[in-house]
Structures are given as C-alpha cells and as structure tokens.
C-alpha cells in the first residue's frame, strides 16, 4: 500500500491549476508488485461530463476509480481534481505524496458506488444516508434527514427509511448506496459496475435512477459498465481500455457504431455474444 512517489516537479507555475478540467490523470503509474496496471496514463474529464469506461477484465478500469477515490496509492504521475493535486500536496513549488490529512480533505468532493453496495449493516437506511453528512459535514440531524428522505424518494425508496439493508433486495440496496453517495453532494460520482452483482430483473431499476440523476443534475460521472445500452444513452464520451491504456476514445455513437480499433470491435463483439 505505502508506495512512495518522490517529489515531482510541478509542471508549470504552482502545478497544473487547470480548473477547466475536473479530473486530470497525468502520467499516472500504478503497479501491484511486478504487475504494471497503469503505465503513464493520461486523460482528463470536463466538469459535468459523463464518461463510460469500458474494456476487458483486468484492463485497469476499477483501479482508475479506486485511485480517484484514494482507495489506492499511485506509483507515479499526478492526479488533479479541479486543478488541485489529489494524489499529492503542494510544498513550495514541489509536489509531495499526499498524507492522510490531505486525502481526507480532497476526497470529500468525490463519491463512489461499489459493485457490492457496501451499505453499513448496523444502520438502517436513513442512517446510512445521513451518517456522513452529519459526522463529516456537521449538518444538523433534522436537516440531514430531510435531505436523505428527498434522496430516498428520488431513488424510489420513499417507504424504506426504517428498513435494514439485509431486508432489501440487491437493487434496493444499490439505490440506497447511490442516495448515500449523493448525500455528500460530491462533484464527481464514481460507479464501478453497479449493476453486475444484481439479478437481471433488478438492473433496470438501478439504471433508471442513474439516468434520472444524469438528466437532472450536472454531476460529473465516471462509470465502469458492461451495460452498453446504458453507456450509449448516458455518456458523453466512452473510453475503451485495454491493458491499462486507452485504446480508443470518442462519443458513444462513434465507439459503438463505428469503432476504429480492432480491439474495440473484438471487445464489443465479445460483450454482445455474452448476452
């Protein structure tokens, strides 16, 4: 875990303060032991943009989201969020590896929904959603609960405030997890295959909720998905990954109807066969 990256010279004055990009990966390297998962990966995302990450298993999609959520430490390069370093902190005109305090501050603008929901089983639905606003942001309980009820209504769980996670279906749990992430009002929402642990008949409910969020908010979304229909409808841009590198990138119509790269075509074929 504790892989050090030495100080890196900040590119340009005071680092790359390009706030027109909400996310910027700059030569990001991630290794697990000898396995180099990301090799100097560069890409950026504009505010409000919805980006679908697709690609074969093991291509590094989850790793990218986990790096952004600060669940993993990178081995090289810099990740910027709204022009501020996420993986690093400024020290004079140098960037040094972020400490826990810095991470705790910067990660607040980012929310994540996991494949396995990861709701807190010791709390009811309402408390799952209010826990962070109350204890991290210091929102008053009343206010947090009112907001949580609104969010739970948004995800169609207006009648489940008191339920415990174990009493809910997978689809319902995932919708609570979405409400829980939104309760912190993140600028960036990360979604890692949020429907792949669900029974097929529960997938549509979760995707509908995400469509609604996409249509009614300007939250930046990065999502890994195997639901190509959803990716096509919701994303502004699709990034096709293979072996930690972007093979092809473009608007969904182009990627899905007219992919330029053989690897993209192969991958899309394989996905269609699977269904």
């Amino acid at each position, binding site marked *: 875990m504790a892989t050090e990256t030495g100080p890196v010279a900040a590119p340009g004055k005071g680092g790359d303060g390009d706030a027109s990009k909400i996310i910027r990966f700059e030569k990001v390297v991630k290794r697990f032991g000898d396995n180099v998962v990301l090799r100097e990966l560069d890409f950026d995302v504009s505010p409000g943009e919805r980006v679908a990450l697709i690609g074969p298993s093991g291509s590094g999609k989850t790793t990218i989201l986990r790096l952004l*959520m*600060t*669940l993993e430490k990178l081995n090289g390069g810099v990740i910027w969020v709204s022009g501020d370093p996420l993986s690093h902190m400024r020290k004079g005109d140098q960037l040094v590896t972020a400490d826990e305090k810095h991470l*705790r501050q910067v*990660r*607040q603008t*980012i*929310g*994540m929904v*996991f494949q*396995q929901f*990861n*709701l*807190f*089983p*010791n709390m009811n639905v309402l408390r799952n959603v209010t*826990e*962070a606003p109350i*204890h*991290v942001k210091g929102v008053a309980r009343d206010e947090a609960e009112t907001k949580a009820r609104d969010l739970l209504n948004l995800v169609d769980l207006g009648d489940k405030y008191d339920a415990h996670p174990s009493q809910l279906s997978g689809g319902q749990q995932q919708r609570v997890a979405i409400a*829980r*992430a939104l309760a*912190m009002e993140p600028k960036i929402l990360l979604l890692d295959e949020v429907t792949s642990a669900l029974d097929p008949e529960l997938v549509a409910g979760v995707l509908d909720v995400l469509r609604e969020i996409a249509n009614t908010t300007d939250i930046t979304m990065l999502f890994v998905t195997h639901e190509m229909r959803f990716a096509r409808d919701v994303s502004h841009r699709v990034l096709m990954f293979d072996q930690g590198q972007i093979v092809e990138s473009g608007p969904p119509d182009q990627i899905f109807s007219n992919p330029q790269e053989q690897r993209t075509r192969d991958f899309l074929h394989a996905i269609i066969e699977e269904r």
Partner: protein
Amino acid sequence: MQWDWNYAADIMPRLLDGLVVTVSATLVGYLIAVVLGLAIALLRRSDNRAVSGTVRWIMEFIRSTPLLVQLFFIFFVLPSFGVVLSAFTAGVIGLGLHYAAYTSEVYRAGIEAVPKGQWEAATALSLSPGRTWFGVVLPQAVPKVIPALGNYLIAMFKDSPMLFGITVVEMLGAAYQIGAETFRYLEPMTIVGVLFVVVSIPASILFRYLERRYGH
C-alpha cells in the same frame, strides 16, 4: 466423615462473604479486561510500528507467563518500586491485565471479520478514523464476539481463587481458612464447588441468550 448440616449452615455466611469478594473481583477484573482488550486491539493496528510492536510483545509476554506469577509480581514486587496496592486492587488489575491479552485477540478476530468493503465505503464517505471505528467497524465486530468474550468471563471467575495467593480472602480462601481452623474441609470445599456451579451456569445461559440476541 459425615456431612454436618448444622456446621454447613454455620459457615455459610463466611463463604457467602467470600463469594461476594470473588464476584466483585471477577466483575471489576472483567471490566478492565474488556475495555483494555479493546484498546490493545486498536493499538495493535496502529500505523506506528513501534506502538503496535511493543503492544504485541507485551501481550505475548503476558500470555506466556502464569497468572499467579503476574499476581505475585504486582503484589509483592511492585511495592519495592514504590507501587503499593491493596491485595484486592492488585488482584483485580492482575486478572484484568491477564485476560485483556486474551480478549484483545477476540476483538482482533472480530475486527478482521468486518469486510474490506465496509472500510472502503467509510473512506469513500470521508468518515474520520474515529467515526469509522466507532460508527461502522466496532458496531459490527463487537456483537459477533460477545459469546467468546463471555467465555472469558466464566474462565476468569474460575481463575479468581488465585487471588488467595496474594491474601485476598475470596470464596476458596474463606473455605480454606475455615477448614484450617476447624479441621473440617468436607463442607466448606463442597459448598464452594457448588457455589461456583450455581454462578457459572446462569452466566453461561445469559451469554447464550446474548449470542442469540446480538450474534446475528
């Protein structure tokens, strides 16, 4: 030798006084063991290697030496370093410390059984380390280990006669003194055995109930 009911009735008050000492030493010692054990389990997960290493080494040391040696050390040796404790206090601290080495392992297993996804969800919500521990991890870990912790309460209760070694007149000590004065050991020792059973069995029933209630 014949069982003498009158004699049994005569010595009962002294034995019950001993029982009170036994039960209070066990309860106070247990309180120390469950609180300290949790603190140790948390310290052992400290990022600071010096802290986690030292704590681990101390616990290893405590588990490898007999309780009686530790009690003797606290009661007879510490005074020469200026730490003078009453026999009861020394006994309770000894029991608590000794059993904390075991309860900390129980907590550790419970904490490790909390899925990694719970920690990650807490991180993704920016919960502080304190809130992650006390709002998320421990409320899941502790209920699951209540039965195992309960077993140590009963084990501790049965170890409490060791306190007689440092002059605490608990139940067995009282029985021994009565026997030495009257040369009749049958009644006091038998009654002590029965009293141990009478307390232990309801306690284990209580813990089995708690297990059903909270153990998921």
